[in-house]
């Protein structure tokens, strides 16, 4: 079973996402901001397959989290997906340059999100094995 680390400071949104993912057969781990997510990634016994993070968060936002993950040799294999209501193309471009795997705009369609997560996880596994 695939495990997704869901990062969002907004508990109701986080729960809603977690609920959706569970219904579609994912395991989930939760974090409330970028810092919390990094700690989880670094300490976690559980194998995490993908980080699904909000963009705007206190303490450490999604972009900072992305940078931290992708610049850390220990962590950079984790695929990161940003789930956000940001629309600016330049932010998207910067995130892509920082190594973002996919960008999902809120509101999202559940099926498309699930497909994208599956696809991104598969792809990163393939890359890892190469």
């Amino acid at each position: 079973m695939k495990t997704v680390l869901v990062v969002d400071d907004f508990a109701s949104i986080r729960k809603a996402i977690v609920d959706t993912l569970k219904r579609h057969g994912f395991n989930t781990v939760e974090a409330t901001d970028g810092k919390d997510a990094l700690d989880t990634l670094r300490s976690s016994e559980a194998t995490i397959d993908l980080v699904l993070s909000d963009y705007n968060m206190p303490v450490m936002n999604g972009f900072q989290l992305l940078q931290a993950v992708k610049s850390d040799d220990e962590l950079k294999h984790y695929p990161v997906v940003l789930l956000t209501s940001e629309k600016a193309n330049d932010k998207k471009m910067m995130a892509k340059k920082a190594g973002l795997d996919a960008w999902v705009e809120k509101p999202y369609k559940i099926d498309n999100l699930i497909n994208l997560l599956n696809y991104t996880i598969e792809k990163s596994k393939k890359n890892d094995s190469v």
Partner: protein
Amino acid sequence: MTQYDQMFREEGNEQLEIAEQALLSYESHADIRYIEEAFRALHTFKGGAHIFALTNLGDFAHMIESVLDGIRHELLTDEPRIADKLLKYLDHLKKLMNDPELKDSQIQLKNNQLVKEIKALSSKISDAIKKSDQSKETALLEAFIEQEDEENISTYYLTIQPLIDIETGSGHPVFGILDDIQEMGDHKMKPAFKNDNSIVVRWDLYVACQATREDLEAQFMFIEDEVELTVHKIANFNLFNELGFEELLNVLDKTPTDQKLTELTGYVESLKETLVADSADSDTTGKGSKSGSIRVSTSKIDVLMNLVSELVTDQAGLKMMVSSSPDPQFEGLVENIERHIRQLRDIAFEMTLVPIDRLMGKFRRLVRDCSISINKEVNFKVTGENTELDKIYIDTLSDPIMHILRNCLDHGIESPEERSKKGKPAIGTISLDAYYSGAYVHIEISDDGRGLNIQSIQNKALELGLINENDKPSTSEIYELIFQPGFSTAQNVTNVSGRGVGMDVVKKNIEDIHGEINISSEAGKGTKFTIKVPLTLSIIDALLVKADHSHFVLPLQIVHKCYELRYDSLTDDFNKLLVLDNKQIPFIDLRTELSLDKTPVPEYCNAIVVKCRKMELAIITDEIIGEYQAVLKSVSEYYKHQEFVSGATILGDGSVALVLDADKLVEQKTN
């Protein structure tokens, strides 16, 4: 997801609280950090609202966010009381939390109004961006320009060619992206498959949307090594609204790929030529209006109303004929015609009516703007905005009401300091109440200000020579003086209310449409202007009655109850009061009042109780003939000054019935 709804509500409110606190801090200490804080809170809120499909909430939050963004970039520096406005928007957002679907029409109204207001702010910001030559702001600029011209739709032709094998149903992210793009607007998509199996070799996607080419390209950013994308902007309007476009697309399906673009540009060129040909309405071309209403000139409606009234009169004649020679078939036919004419009449009549609500936006704005410019805080309350009035009346009343509102604000409402001294709430109240009363619509505009100063009006009138030293005018006569040309007691002329030109024009405008205006006032407590205009123009539902040999018509709307009583029970004792249902009601007897005495008094008579201005009056008649559709005709000048007749109508047999002006009767009798 309903279980999270409650949670979102709590968290959403928390975010709004954070934003509110930040804005309050900003108000007392203009530090951009507070704006950033509010921005973040709203952004989070917006995201949540979209997740839970609370579109209205999300969209509204988004608009506030863009204003905050403008402040953050110092593009809205000269806007007064901006924090105040933002707080108002937040309050509205909180209200929306309880009614996200805008079910309450009040909230919906408010929503529309605020959206307009915010859009005005946004356009100020985009103007500011255009003025500033900072190129680094281009991203921001795009965002605002996009918002400014919501209709700004372009049509794009996209080709997407997979570089890897992508199978339909494989869940590849490209399907999600294509989904998203198709959500953006009118679209048509055609996939082509490899050897008729499910592996896609190419998609042709036509879409009309507000997105820019860059936006579309950015959609594919994360799969750019898996598909090859081309984006062509083929028109800067929505081609899907154009004749023949979808047919062209069907043809294009069979056209070789390399010729598609040529075909498309050829089509757009041919369209542009026709656009130039009828450039008269070039503003609207290419956008296609889907409005459910049409414009009709008022003169046509007038003709229609006239024809309908003629029909009504003819129909009354027909009805009389049928009652004298009963023929069941004929009778049924006449009844049908009557029903149809009644419907036709109602519809024709409704066409001319518009709710007074239409003026409210203008009024609210006026009160708001004025109160800011003269530093007075005012709460503007409106009731009865759904009251309908003839369009012509609405147009005529707009200026007089604006003038009165300005007067209330400027002269009526005191400054906050003065109000506090008097022990009144610092925020003044101006209310506008519209309601039906009998065959009239009343519009009351009242303030809780200082009231009219009888002494200074009198002094001014003396000065102007409108009254003599020895005159002892009554209070209401003094108030009437305000409507004299050139009258103004204002010590200082401000730019808000006029320079003494005005109230006379107000009165004239209202009288032109057969309306009336009255003032009542109480020193220190406020002033009330009451405008009374007739509701109907030409045809009314009425009660046809008879007294002696004469017919009279009473508007049915004001008829409250009818009683039968012995004629000899009417006496002059008790000040002409009648006891009906244990209530004392003043009465007038049409026979005695109008000296009708050609026929002997009947043994029994009918008392028709009419209700007007919240008062009752019994009108004594010999006989009630029944309901009647009266086509109102104006009476000659001679009758104009009568106290009881507002018009006349022609009965089916050609005789004339006078229309009783119950409002005047009641006024006369109860004073």
